[in-house]
């Protein structure tokens, strides 16, 4: 299943899907998901889509749980996921999320031409998880999936 905002990534690539497990006690499947940002409006939609997908496959005994801890981080994004993101035109997160000092001087390569001559236009962008950049060489504006 893909993310509604970034249709090239699955919820597993993104690290939103934390676990799927059968519970003998509850006699049901427990699906655990975690939101990227507290207010991410896609979380409710993702949960609905999981529900529909399971029902379509005839699975009725399940419960979907939202877990907040440990908090979601871009460090969980798979390498394959990062590459898919770049090919889609979104610069993948650069570096590790915990490195606060790095945030200040992050160089984000342009997902189109690969140039490192890029400029932060806005710390916020089309969705909560992205920042807005501009490539100074190919002049293409692009989204950067923020380190988080």
């Amino acid at each position: 299943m893909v993310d509604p905002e970034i249709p090239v990534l699955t919820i597993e690539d993104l690290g939103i899907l934390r676990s799927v497990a059968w519970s003998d006690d509850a006699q049901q499947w427990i699906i655990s998901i975690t939101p990227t940002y507290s207010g991410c409006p896609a979380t409710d939609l993702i949960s609905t889509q999981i529900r529909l997908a399971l029902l379509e496959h005839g699975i009725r005994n399940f419960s979907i749980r939202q877990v907040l801890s440990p908090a979601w981080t871009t460090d969980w994004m798979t390498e394959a996921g990062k590459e898919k993101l770049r090919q889609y035109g979104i610069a993948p997160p650069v570096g590790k999320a915990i490195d606060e000092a790095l945030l200040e001087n992050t160089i984000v390569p342009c997902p189109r031409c690969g140039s490192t001559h890029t400029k932060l236009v806005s710390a916020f962008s089309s969705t909560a998880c992205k920042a807005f950049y501009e490539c100074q060489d190919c002049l293409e504006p692009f989204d950067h999936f923020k380190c988080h």
Partner: protein
Amino acid sequence: MNDMPINQSTSQPINYILHLADDALIMSQRLSEWTGHGPVLEQDIALTNIALDYLGQARNFYQYAAQKQNEAESATGPQALLPGGEERSGEVTEDSLAMLRLEHEFKNHLLVELPNGDWGQTVLKVFFFSAYQKLLMQQLVHCTDEQVKGIAEKSLKEVSYHLRWSREWVLRLGDGTAESHERMRLALEAVWMYTGELCVQPDYHQGWVDYTAMKTDWMEHVQHTLAEATLDAPVAAGFQSGGLYGRHTEHLGYLLAEMQYLQRVYPNSEW
């Protein structure tokens, strides 16, 4: 504080959780007034994104408060949590807590309900609040309540980003042109008297946060940034307080009237 207009025992964690939720919700509602009115598109989007983060935090805290309240009521029977001791049908939900409580039942800081003013005043308010919220969340991530701990872990990263963004604006405008500096000076004068209530321990606190240490750290961070922005913190004649106990400025009522209108006119409506 015995004149607390809240029909709940002060020791119950729900009061503290509602206090955290109310701050986030009112901050979110205020900032979302900028949506479509920002000075440039990028900053319009920035504030809208920040407002969305606050809304998410508020929902997490309200959901937990509702769960706690329903658990308590399943043991003791329904307690009037709604205004005027009104009979309530069904369980408490995140929506009933946000949309059906009255002004005097909100426990947010006065700072967050103040009108936005101009851009300078808005970013200054976000800066003061983010500096507080970052220190708060840094302590709450160690708290003994697993759910509050989880929400704090989630929020801390967002709040750090808000602080970085708003701090940059305070520096840029304070140490900017004569006009921007003057606007920031006026904003500071308007808002400063409402900052005294931040980092003050509410009576219904749960022992999760060392407020004394937080106050020192907040003041240090704020003074440092103001100095860098070439702004002087005003010498306050006095600080306003009361929000933590439901005594609000005249501004909150208008905000709630707008925010709660639909639920009050069309109860239980959904979209």
